């Protein structure tokens, strides 16, 4: 009996997991390991590979460009992550309530999600244009003299964050909508019997029961926002004056513009360790908080 279950289990793993695992090994993990090995080398991509031990890693510690990029990346996350989660969750709550045309609204808010980053960045670069763009034109109607956005080092990152939030709201909203569907209606009915107000219902029913969803959303968003690149590459190239220089932009430049593949790999691995640590911590904290977790 137990043997049978085991056999069927291993057969299932063989059929369901192994193909994916083999593909991962060949096309994802092998190149990743190669990049780890390269991070201990000096390689300009043209000549031979030179082994230099931990030199790349010690260089990183004292490299002001890395510090700036890490700082800017954290600034991006600090602006982006709370905004996208709060707005998308609020939207999901509204669109999950009894409201007319909610299918329409759900569909519309999801449209930016299915548009390419390059297209979105180009269009927003245009819209944020201080002279010919429609954002400052709109602001002028309410008496606000809009900033220089991507041309102003104090505002460029805000422009990038605005664009990213705009694009990602729909994605996070849909995931939250799915999560809200899993919450049994009778919990709210019970709460109403006890005269709970809307805030109490959210605080003690909705939010805790959304923990698994929030874990998924924050994990994905954190991993993605540590690697923010496409929109910055199209919109600002890290400028003006380095104000939007982020980790991925630094890695790309080192790999393909400065001929320093080894150093770029080392920075990637530092970034990897940071992301991994943050993800593990976040998972741990959430496990502490809720039983409804992975």
């Amino acid at each position, binding site marked *: 009996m137990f043997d049978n279950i085991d056999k069927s289990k291993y057969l299932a793993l063989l059929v369901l997991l192994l193909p994916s695992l083999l593909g991962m090994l060949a096309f994802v993990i092998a190149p990743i390991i190669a990049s780890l*090995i390269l991070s201990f080398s000096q390689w300009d*991509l043209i000549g031979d590979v030179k082994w230099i031990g931990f030199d790349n890693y010690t260089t990183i510690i004292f490299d002001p460009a890395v510090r700036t990029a890490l700082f800017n990346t954290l600034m991006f996350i600090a602006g982006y992550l709370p905004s996208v989660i709060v707005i998308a969750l609020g939207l999901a709550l509204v669109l999950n309530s009894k409201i007319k045309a909610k299918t329409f609204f759900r569909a519309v808010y999801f449209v930016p999600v299915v548009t390419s980053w390059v297209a979105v960045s180009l269009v927003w670069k245009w819209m944020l244009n201080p002279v010919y763009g429609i954002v400052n034109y709109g602001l002028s109607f309410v008496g606000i003299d809009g900033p220089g956005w991507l*041309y102003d080092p104090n505002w460029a990152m805000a422009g990038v964050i605005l664009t990213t939030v705009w694009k990602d709201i729909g994605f996070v909203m849909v995931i939250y909508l799915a999560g809200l569907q899993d919450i049994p209606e009778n919990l709210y009915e019970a709460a109403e019997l006890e005269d709970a107000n809307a805030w109490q219902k959210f605080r003690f029913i909705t939010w805790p029961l959304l923990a698994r969803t929030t874990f998924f959303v924050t994990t994905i968003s954190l991993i993605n926002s540590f690697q923010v690149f496409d929109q910055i590459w199209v919109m600002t190239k890290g400028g*003006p004056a380095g104000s939007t220089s982020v980790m991925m932009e630094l890695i790309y430049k080192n790999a*393909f*513009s400065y001929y320093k593949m080894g150093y770029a790999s080392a920075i990637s691995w530092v970034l990897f360790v940071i992301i991994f640590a943050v993800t593990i911590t976040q998972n741990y904290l959430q496990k502490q908080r809720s039983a409804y977790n992975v």
Partner: protein
Amino acid sequence: MKIINKLFATVAIASLSVAGFANAESVTVKYLTFSAAPNYIKELDATIAAFEAKNPDIEVEYETAGWEAYFTKLQTLVASGKAPDTYELNHENFVTYASKGALLDIGGMLGADKSIYNATALDVFTHDGKQLGLVESFSNVVLFYNQEMFDAAGVDYPAESWTWKEELEAAQKLTKDGNWGAFAPIQFWEFYKTIAQNGGAILNDDKTEVVIDSAQNVETLTWMIDKINKYKVTPSSAQMAGQSSEDMFKAGKIGMLRTGIWMFGAFNDAPFKWDIALEPGNTNKAHHFFANGVVVSDKTENPEQAFKWIKFLTSSQEAVELRIAAGWELPAVSDPKYAKAYLDQPIPPSRDVVFKALDSAVVPPVIANWNQLTDAVGKELEAAVLGTKTPEQALKDAKVAIQAIM
């Protein structure tokens, strides 16, 4: 890493045997280019057709990539042992590839035919005394001006004797009705030339010392920025708002523009009369000199055929004539009849300025880690333009950054 080296070796052997097998009749030469797309594909096709007609045993297969993506692609190809037989390199990247030993010495095959090229331009593609590439074309930057704007403002056209002072006076008269008098970008390339117009430099002559923060360089940078902030004859990047200076010139919004002769074609149908002049300097004349070259990979299986192709591409009558007719930069051949064909074209009238500017050509102080240097200096220049640093401070910081890179 051994694994990767082994992979490289296997790939090399595999491609060897495949190439050897196909060799029996005709040979394929691969060519990677950035300068052909998007505007000169037709000319490249015609050049290849002419070459293949003369060399029926050689087939040229080309691939184009846009400027931004080109070097990412080239590096990946070279890194994995799949370098194309022949490829295009600009001067700065040539120095990088040459110093890494990725290029074939073609001096022997060129021999006495050296003389068909302009000597200065060909010399750019030597490294450690070896000829590692052929010069394909060169270009420079001059002062473009809108004659009708000058006429309307009653200002004399720019003369060879002009200095920054006359340029500024003219610009102030031209700046009105939403039009701007003058434009020069503030970025690394413009900077190294403009400081030369004031007797300055980034590195000393033997490239051992960083002199970017000299007094005359601070004066130069201040002048460049003053044109925007103090005299307001040049639009700031926020005022230009994503519109390129070239587009603005073509729309008749800029009186004098410092830009490359590669814009001749694009400005050809401008709805006003325009011409070019030598750039005004402060104490010196100085003009950019850019050269593109074509090289043969040291990994090629067919060095002779590859060389035949790049020689044809850079110096044959067919290729040169196609280039001149299309305005696809300037072939760097020495035969004066080609220069005449170039000069005879009607727009702009003063085409001889292109050749006069060569007398005061400055080449960039290329060092290893060149791209990193240009980024670092560019960032400091941006900070100075934005006013977050004074010109003195920006150049001091640039000096520190360059020293760290060197």
